[in-house]
């Protein structure tokens, strides 16, 4: 079994709220691995902590009000990014690990051309001359499938469509051939046909460069098509983790099951009557429920769930640790009958 | 055109056109600037109690269409008939009365509620405008509306920023229902909501439709959502409807290549599903300069695409009972 490229163990990132209504424990003990060349999908709804997780890996969380708790391990190629000195961390950001955001136009500087912005990354990390960097920028734009890359390099972000901006962002991220690309909702703001293009592009680039991708999204359909393994987040924790096929075929955590059941699908006949929806709403990060955080919304919850938070338990599919679930139902499967 | 056989339609839209022109230079005296053809001749009809799903990507004009149908925007041409009344020809007073029959729910629940009004004030406003209830009677109605959309009565005291996205959207729906409309235009009502909350709101909308016998124009970019709730579906591209028909038929056997491409691109939560390798190249052209001939032809992957597609804009014509498509090759499935 190969060594993971990125090992996250017990990552905790807390935020102090402005007027002391408590501490928001946005990421509260998240652990996962990303292996070289694979795509790990991190799935969850808003408020589950997935974006904060991505930012915490590269320590991009604004330090007041947030902070990554001591004891968090973010091991990349043997070094703990959570405790790395700033100069070394800067060498990792952009060169070894790159980040692509959701809103491409918001992440690009409006007063510089896209070509200049891509070139800047090359200048900073690889110390190329400006001319060489500009040439590399045009190469990258061609690589990400921009039509007429030389001309596009001279355009400003507001002159490009959403899809083109996202391609430019990807080009910027890949300039230094990083080993890991963290993509935070890269296609959410795009049309579905453009989304398909971008996902196909990411797949092609991954195969070509052999890089790993941490794909963060709320869209289960995207994850099904693009991810090798999936981690489902809820309330600051990873509640289920499995290879993609396994997760969709055999979802074990009631939250995962609820999500899958409540998503309307193009390929299924129209559901007669109601969509099974998860009752209630995501709790606030300042007040996670005690015990299992999903218990207030879970159809199977019983006393143990309210009292004790379940650790990730092995679902026993294939290799040990391949499919883990934070749910007591794994120890008492006979309780998997919904309450009346 | 483009509605199934059955009772007379509650809503009929004919040849609706809305162009936006850039402001003329020289203080309004210069030559007319380029026009954005946001809605370029759209026609459809909705039967009472039916849900028409309108899908399209960004820039296709569906939001403009939504607002034009309820006359929040003045169309440049065309006719809109709701419950027998010609919406576009009404004088202000009659239009206000007709607004009791048709309402609209917006996409962004945060922006759709006045941040300075409590929920109670927001729900009581339509009652006051149309003189339906005041004082204690209004309070009663507000409580009833909240219950109907599944919200606690004590949320009435809260302000929008104290509610979650799903709760705000329910308030927006309640507000639209306050005047007891027959026809509801829903402009991307669940697009801004989380998956699990969206499912709750979709269920609510279906139940309300059953209970109050509502007619819906449901606008969305998510095909899966539309499939779940719509009886008939119309697909928009660059301001025109390119295909319209019964939902089941349209999803099973689309007749227009764009519809087929949309279906192929829609992500499916099943890793084992056959990945339809139909990725549409390029992006939608700017509505300022639509291509000649068929507006879709530059991106069209149809094997039989030919010169006629480049020069001759196809009309929306019936290719199966109740099912129309604007493509020269629409006789066979795309």
């Amino acid at each position, binding site marked *: 079994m190969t060594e993971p490229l990125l090992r996250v163990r017990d990552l905790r990132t807390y935020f102090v709220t*402005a*007027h002391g209504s408590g501490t928001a424990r946005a990421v509260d003990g998240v652990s996962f691995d990303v292996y070289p060349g694979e795509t790990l999908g991190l799935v969850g709804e808003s408020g589950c902590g997935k974006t904060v997780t991505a930012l915490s890996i590269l320590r991009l969380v604004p330090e007041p009000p947030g902070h990554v708790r001591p004891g968090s391990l973010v091991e990349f190629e043997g070094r703990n990014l959570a405790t790395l000195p700033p100069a070394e961390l800067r060498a990792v950001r952009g060169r070894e690990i790159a980040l692509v955001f959701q809103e491409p136009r918001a992440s690009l500087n409006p007063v510089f051309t896209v070509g200049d912005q891509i070139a800047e990354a090359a200048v900073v990390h690889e110390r190329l001359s400006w001319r060489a960097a500009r040439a590399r920028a045009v190469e990258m734009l061609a690589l990400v499938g921009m039509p007429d890359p030389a001309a596009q390099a001279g355009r400003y972000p507001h002159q490009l469509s959403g899809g083109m901006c996202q391609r430019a962002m990807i080009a910027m991220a890949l300039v230094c051939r990083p080993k890991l690309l963290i993509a935070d909702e890269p296609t959410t703001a795009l049309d579905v046909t453009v989304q398909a293009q971008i996902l196909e592009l990411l797949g092609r680039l991954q195969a070509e460069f052999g890089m790993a991708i941490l794909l963060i999204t709320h869209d289960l359909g995207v994850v099904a098509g693009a991810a090798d393994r999936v981690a489902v987040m809820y309330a600051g924790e990873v509640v289920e983790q499995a290879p993609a096929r396994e997760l969709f075929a055999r979802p074990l955590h009631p939250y995962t099951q609820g999500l899958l059941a409540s998503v309307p699908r193009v390929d299924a006949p129209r559901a007669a009557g109601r969509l099974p929806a998860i009752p209630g709403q995501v709790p606030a990060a300042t007040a996670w429920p005690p015990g299992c955080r999903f218990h207030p919304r879970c159809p199977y919850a019983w006393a143990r769930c309210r009292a004790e938070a379940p650790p990730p338990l092995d679902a026993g599919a294939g290799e040990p640790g391949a499919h883990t679930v934070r749910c007591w139902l794994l120890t008492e499967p006979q309780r998997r009958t919904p309450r009346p | 055109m483009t509605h199934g056989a059955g009772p007379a339609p509650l809503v009929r839209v004919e040849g609706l056109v809305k162009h936006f022109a850039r402001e003329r230079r020289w203080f309004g005296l210069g030559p007319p600037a380029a026009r954005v053809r946001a809605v370029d001749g759209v026609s459809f009809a909705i039967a009472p109690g039916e849900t028409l799903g309108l899908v399209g990507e960004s820039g296709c004009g569906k939001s403009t269409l939504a*607002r034009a149908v*309820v006359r*929040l925007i003045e169309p440049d041409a065309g006719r809109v008939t709701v419950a027998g009344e010609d919406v576009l020809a009404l004088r*202000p007073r009659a*239009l*206000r009365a007709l*607004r*009791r029959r048709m*309402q*609209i729910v*917006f*996409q*962004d629940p945060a*922006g*759709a*509620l*006045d*941040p*300075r009004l409590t929920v109670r004030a927001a729900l009581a*406003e*339509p009652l006051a*405008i*149309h003189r339906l209830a005041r004082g204690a009677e209004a309070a009663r109605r507000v409580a009833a509306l909240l219950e109907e959309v599944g919200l606690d009565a004590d949320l009435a005291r809260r302000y929008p*920023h104290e509610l979650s996205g799903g709760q705000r959207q329910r308030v*927006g729906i309640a*507000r639209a229902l306050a*005047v007891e409309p027959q026809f509801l235009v829903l402009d991307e009502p669940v697009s801004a909501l989380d998956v699990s909350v969206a499912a709750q709101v979709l269920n609510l909308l279906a139940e309300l439709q059953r209970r109050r016998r509502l007619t819906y124009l449901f606008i969305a970019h998510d095909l899966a959502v539309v499939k779940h709730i719509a009886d008939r579906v119309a697909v928009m591209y660059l301001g025109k409807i390119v295909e319209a028909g019964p939902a089941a038929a349209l999803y099973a056997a689309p007749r227009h290549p764009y519809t087929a491409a949309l279906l192929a691109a829609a992500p499916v939560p099943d890793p084992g599903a056959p990945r339809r390798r139909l990725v549409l190249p390029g992006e939608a052209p700017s509505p300022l300069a639509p291509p000649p001939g068929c507006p879709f032809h530059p991106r069209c992957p149809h094997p039989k695409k030919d010169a006629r597609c480049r020069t001759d804009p196809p009309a929306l014509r019936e290719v199966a009972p109740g099912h129309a498509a604007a493509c020269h090759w629409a006789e066979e499935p795309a």
Partner: protein
Amino acid sequence: MTAWHWLALAAAALAALAAVAALRRRARRTARGRRFFRHPAAAPGLVVLAFVVTTALAAPGLAPYPPRAQLDIVRLADQPPSLRHPLGTDLYSRDVWSRLVYGARVSLGVGALAMLVAVTLGAAVGAAAGYFRRWPDALLMRVVDVGLALPRIFVLLVAVALWGHVTLGPLVLLIGLTGWFPTSRLVRAEVLSVRERDFVAAARALGAGPARIILRHVLPNAAAPIIVSAALGIGNVMLLEAGLSFLGLGVPPPMPSWGNMIADGWPKMAVAPWAALAPGLAISLVVTALNTVGDALRDALDPRAESA
């Protein structure tokens, strides 16, 4: 000045402090309140304003002498501050402290009322221009452009000169009518952005007419520039009134206003500086307080600072 007067003055000061402290406690609960008091000068500014308003309201209780009373023109003119006259007397042997306290009423009153006129007119014009656009907007904004181009003091001078003797009411009106132009621009800009928001479209879809929409939805959400304009506007008007009075064209004597007190005391600066210094310092203090409160309000109400 008897002991009672000193006690009353102390009471007024304490009342002002207590009121501001209570306000601060309540403000801690909202984000806007906290942002307001984050300014170090906001709370002292509020205390000064509260104190001045309290003394103006309680003038009869705080002034030992009637403001227009000439006590003894022979022996008590231009007397320096003493226990009986804490701020001395002026050239007509009137008690400066009493005049100051009653003058606060006039200066603040003129400031507040003229500002009210200006802000109301400015908000109305700005809202109409911003909401209706097209030709009403074009027309109104051209009027505003002309108004902004004319120097205000000049216009007032001409008006007063043509009118002859101006009493207090018409003076307030004149100052207000010449001061609404900047407010209308600010309000128009705010209204232009508010009217695009979905809840305004929702109100139109519900059948609301323009009046209801502007009064109930647009203006309350465009209130920030109006409030800030108001706070800063009072200060401007007070300075303007002082200037006019100094030129002899403002509040008609013998009614005391801080401006005409300076005008009276100015020729005697070498001999009896307190007569002009007291009102001068008072104006400076109040206008500074108004400006700091206005700045703090602007930051507190800034929508970009709102989270979510």
